[in-house]
């Protein structure tokens, strides 16, 4: 992972943004600290000078120039940081501990910032000072100030440490941001790699989870759920392709052979007609298979015909039972029904009728003469249940899952007509309506139960398992 790529990541950009915000708040905080320490010291110095100026002006008013000169001389001796200079006409120094009037320019209020030389332990040092200028009459001037060298050194030290604090904040923040985004990035990178592997054909790959249940972990769970779905769909599609091939090829081959053999020699009209009639019948059967596959595929893709609407399930079942009643009667099969009235369902009436038709069709087909086929519709809790039970041979438990797949026909039923798609459609329709499809034992016979939830098809919610 190069630094350049790191800089382009969203996580890192977020970390940077956060760092910038943090930096601004640190700067505001430090400015406040600086202002309350260094600023207060500066103001105190000014106030002290101002107070002294006021005091000396008062002395000058009370005791005149002589008195002021005495006080200045007195204070110049005792005070360590105070600076004084009283000058007479021509700038001549009369009293004070400054040797000459500083050259610095004063502001409108009479304040001056200047440097002066001072003897410290036998050596001359240049010190910073601040002072205020007071004009006494026309020829005399008084300068009252303070040595601020020490204060300035403290301020300087404060500034250096504050700068360090900012630099440290910046450095640690950047480092933290890089580490943080590298961690998130590594996890996202894993997801990307897994997705690429799956795209490359390895459908079994899943995103590893760390169990923390944080956003990325939950994302991983959802993705894994999606990958499960994709694998299921792709697998079933592969099965379809594998299964369709022989089931569609055999009739096509039969047709081709028949047509070729008929063309080999001159036949009479009746023979040609017979061959064509058989071919038309074969094509019709092929198209039926084709249409059944399409219906299953559409239901499985969750994109069925029309919209899901509430309809009277009881009435739809009664209609279908009546459609099959004569067929059952011809086979001497009793078709019993126990259908609760007014059971409604939100879904696709045509598809559910077709699926139920397939169930009842199978039941009648596989039940021997004098057997019974029973149809039950009843409310179960807030949902409902549709049961088709027969007294036929049933399906061995081991085969029950398998018969729901396309084109699967058990050995026992190889010779009876049918495409092997009936139950596949039932399963697809059940899935579409979030219904539970159960194949059970009717002792003897098969008992198929379709259990619809209350809010069938209202929402196909996708939640991680």
């Amino acid at each position: 992972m190069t630094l350049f790529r790191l800089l382009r990541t969203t996580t890192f950009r977020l970390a940077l943004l956060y760092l910038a915000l943090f930096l601004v708040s640190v700067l505001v905080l430090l400015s406040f600290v600086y202002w309350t320490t260094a600023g207060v010291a500066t103001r105190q110095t000014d106030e002290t000078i101002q107070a002294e100026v006021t005091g000396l002006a008062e002395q000058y008013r009370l005791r005149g120039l002589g008195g002021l000169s005495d006080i200045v001389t007195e204070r110049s001796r005792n005070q360590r940081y105070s600076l004084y200079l009283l000058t007479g006409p021509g700038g001549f120094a009369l009293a004070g501990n400054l040797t000459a009037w500083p050259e610095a320019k004063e502001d409108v209020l009479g304040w001056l910032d200047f440097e002066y030389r001072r003897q410290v332990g036998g050596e001359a040092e240049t010190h910073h000072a601040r002072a205020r200028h007071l004009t006494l009459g026309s020829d005399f001037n008084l300068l009252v100030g303070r040595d601020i060298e020490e204060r300035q050194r403290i301020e300087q030290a404060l500034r250096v440490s504050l700068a360090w604090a900012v630099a440290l904040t910046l450095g640690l923040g950047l480092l933290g941001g890089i580490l943080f985004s590298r961690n998130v990035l590594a996890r996202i990178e894993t997801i990307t790699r897994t997705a690429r592997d799956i795209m490359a054909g390895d459908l079994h790959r899943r995103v590893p989870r760390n169990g923390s249940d944080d956003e990325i972990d939950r994302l991983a769970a959802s993705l894994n759920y999606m990958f499960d779905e994709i694998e299921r769909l792709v697998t079933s599609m592969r099965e379809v392709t594998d299964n369709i091939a022989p089931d569609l090829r055999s009739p096509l081959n039969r047709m081709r052979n028949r047509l070729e053999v008929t063309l080999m020699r001159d036949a009479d009209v009746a023979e040609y007609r017979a061959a064509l009639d058989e071919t038309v019948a074969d094509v019709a059967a092929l198209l039926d298979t084709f249409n059944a596959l399409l219906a299953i595929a559409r239901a499985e893709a969750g994109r069925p015909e029309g919209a899901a609407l509430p309809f009277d399930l009881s009435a739809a079942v009664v209609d279908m039972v009546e459609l099959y009643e004569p067929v059952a009667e011809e086979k001497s099969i009793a078709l019993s029904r126990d259908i609760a009235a007014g059971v409604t369902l939100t879904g696709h009436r045509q598809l559910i009728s077709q699926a139920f038709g397939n169930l009842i069709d199978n039941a009648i087909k596989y039940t021997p003469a004098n057997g019974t086929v029973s149809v039950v519709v009843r409310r179960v809790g807030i949902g409902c249940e549709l049961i088709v039970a027969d007294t036929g041979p049933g399906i061995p438990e081991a085969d029950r899952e398998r018969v729901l797949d396309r084109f699967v026909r058990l050995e026992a039923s190889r010779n009876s007509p049918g495409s092997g798609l009936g139950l596949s459609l039932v399963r697809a329709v059940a899935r579409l309506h979030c219904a539970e499809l159960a194949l059970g034992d009717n002792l003897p016979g098969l008992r198929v139960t379709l259990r619809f939830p209350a809010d069938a098809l209202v929402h196909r919610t996708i939640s991680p398992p």
Partner: protein
Amino acid sequence: MSVFDGAGFFAPVIGLSKPAGVVYSSLMRILVIEDDRQASAYMVKGLAESGHTADNAADGEEGYEMASHGDYDVLVVDRMLPKLDGLKLVGQLRAEGLRTPILFLSALGDVDDRVKGLRAGGDDYLVKPYAFSELLARIEALARRRNPAEVESKLKVADLELDCLTRRVIRSGRDIALQPREFRLLEYLMRNAGHVVTRTMLLEHVWDYHFDPQTNVIDVHISRLRAKIDRDFETPLLHTVRGAGYCLRDSF
């Protein structure tokens, strides 16, 4: 030429390839708007062999021109056409007041799609692949609907009478008791008397199913109905048309 098979009671089976055996609707002019040249060529040929005249338009615009200027009894319109989509084409024709019955052909089989087609002004909808006999039966049924005489409440075919109001069925003066669904089946057959009615048409109109059940249950219902209306009488009225469907008619 009629070929008899053993199924049902006294069930005459009529070969489809001999339209002389069945009186299809009298000559009609049909416009086929379909861009698949081969498909439309077979359709035109099949319609001609059945005694009708058929023209072909290969795209939506040509179809629109021909439909608005020619005098046709039925239009057969493919849903997906170059230049002008089938739905829009029909919408425009209907907006201009054209009332010719229209049969949509489509490779899309959704009910939604069917509904869209019918809303746009189509009168019937047939999903590809379809059997030619199905197409023919539906075209002829549409043509019959063109001038719907008042919906009669009393129907009569030979000596068979059906009264929609009293729900009574009488043949040669004898009452015949029918189940409600059998009554609707017979009513539909009688309203289309003399014409071929396919299994799919019966499923759609009598049962309201837009799919084919696995087993041909319609045959069983027809043979039951036949047992009730034909068994005790000399002349059979309900005939099976091989490869196509059924036909209720007096005699050949």
